[in-house]
């Protein structure tokens, strides 16, 4: 069974500035992470395919990610960025697909979490953009925080034939041990058939230095309950995860948290779901 990391990033500080890394707490990951670093991380964890996810709201970054993926037998898919509020989303996607590695484009993401408007996802221009993503046969990765889950639900219902993937389980406050209203919001999303979710990015929502698997368990248990293994996929969120855990520990922790699942169910979360949702084929 192919083991897939459904969510990671790469960046080169010299290639394009990463202003978000200026935050003092992010100093440990304020360096380049390239294909060699990715190989070093994935090899030990037994990961044989990955999904590379956009970092910056910049189509040039996406074009570059596609080119990198096109040369790689490890990076199987790319979730890129286009300006969803623009009238030419279809053309933007088309241009990306015609460029080098364009056939690796599998989805689109926008950093909704940073939008001041809590209803950004249901703006008419954004919904039109999401329909263009659907028409292109792509997936939409939704990166929200708990307070944005209701807008996410509206968007999911407004574009029912677009597959939404909830990144990082919508970032619950694990360090604060807060469950509500996150749990209700996530459960409502899970009730919609066109939604899957990523068990990723959780270690950095927990206490970076003192977290244990037990801290994550209530959140993962709820996700398992609501989505089921067929709609969940493990992602590392590497290199961001390095703030709280190395790559191997992220995967080892995921395995530990899935100890109640059957082998077949674990295979889904560790690869099957990602392969199906992102159309990564039989690699």
């Amino acid at each position: 069974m192919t083991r897939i990391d459904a969510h990671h990033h790469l960046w080169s500080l010299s290639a394009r500035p990463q202003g978000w890394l200026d935050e003092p707490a992010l100093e440990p990951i304020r360096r380049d992470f390239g294909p060699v670093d990715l190989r070093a991380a994935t090899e030990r964890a037994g990961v044989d395919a990955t999904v590379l996810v956009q970092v910056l709201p910049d189509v040039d970054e996406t074009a570059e990610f596609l080119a990198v993926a096109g040369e790689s037998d490890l990076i199987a898919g790319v979730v890129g960025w286009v300006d969803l509020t623009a009238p030419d989303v279809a053309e933007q996607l088309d241009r990306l697909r015609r460029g080098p590695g364009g056939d690796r484009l599998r989805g689109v993401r926008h950093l909704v979490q940073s939008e001041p408007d809590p209803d950004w996802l249901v703006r008419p221009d954004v919904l039109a953009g999401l329909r263009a993503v659907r028409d292109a046969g792509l997936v939409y990765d939704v990166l929200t925080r708990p307070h944005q889950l209701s807008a996410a639900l509206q968007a999911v219902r407004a574009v029912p034939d677009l597959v939404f993937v909830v990144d990082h389980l919508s970032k619950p406050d694990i360090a604060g041990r807060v469950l509500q209203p996150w749990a209700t919001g996530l459960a409502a999303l899970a009730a919609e058939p066109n939604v899957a979710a990523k068990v990723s990015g959780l270690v950095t929502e927990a206490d970076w230095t003192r977290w244990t698997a037990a801290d994550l368990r209530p959140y993962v248990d709820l996700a398992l309950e609501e989505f089921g293994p067929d709609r969940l996929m493990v992602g590392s969120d590497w290199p961001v995860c390095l703030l709280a855990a190395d790559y191997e520990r992220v995967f080892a922790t995921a395995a530990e948290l899935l100890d109640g699942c059957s082998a077949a169910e674990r295979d889904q979360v560790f690869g099957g779901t990602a392969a199906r949702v992102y159309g990564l084929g039989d690699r």
Partner: protein
Amino acid sequence: MTSAAPEWSTERVPLGRSGVTVSRLGLGTAPLAGLFSAVAEEEAAAALEAAWAAGIRYFDTAPHYGAGLAERRLGAFLASRPRAECTVSTKVGRLLVPGEAAPGDEGFHGERGLVRVRDYSADGVYRSLAESLERSGLDSFDVVLIHDPDDHWEDAVTGAYPALERLRAEGAVRAIGAGMNQAAMLTRFVAETDVDCVLVAGRYSLLDRGAADELLPLCEKRQVGVLVGGVFNSGILADPTAHATYDYAPAPDDVRRRALALAERCAAHGVPLVAAALRFPLRHPAVTGVVVGARNAREVADNAAHAATGIPEALWAELDALEERAQ
């Protein structure tokens, strides 16, 4: 008659079919990372400055050299230079892990808190290279060589080599190969894999022409680049006096006698032995470039000056005859 080619050392030449070019004279960074004895930070920096000033644009390093010290020093220096103007090679096969290193550990007076662990697995290659990138601060290495797999052939061809091939395929490195002190296993690499280049140390010099038997002809045939290191056999051909080292150990008497005989022939033509030794490998058409180490700016300047020394054809003939008799 003098075979003068004053510009040869800074000339950029293609390394096999890889698309990478190197200056014919490259700088080896083992000495400036404390090979045999410690080298101060400023001395090392001055050596790198001098190399750049002399037009050297190919730098070879490895985690092994000073347990990371060479990569750190080279990277710090190149941070202030246009990276695209030069070619850098490093190596894989030894991981550096925390540990207490005695001065002189594995020949180096380098970083004290790290020791070497051999690892020729794919995982080891990726980790080693990721750590080399971090240590040096460089965003890529142009060339990556499998380092000293003498007792690890099986791991090297089933682990390290396929890993490097993948990195080359995805553009993370531009050329791959192996670097060793022996010719026989390098010949196997060239025959059995798709390496772009080899770095052969000590086996194609005035004192040891072993690489000419099989390795160099095969490389020429397969258009595999050849970098020659150890042109002084770790010291003796630079200075064949009493304390000379041959292949990293005190030189045996018979080797010293041969070196002194070579020096005598050179002196008769007014050529320093070291100049002939530095130039010798490039007489073979398979050889792309020579990699010569230096501990300080003066040694770099000396090497550059020796590179510019014209060598009479008659001297080559005499040196060839001497070595034929020695075989």
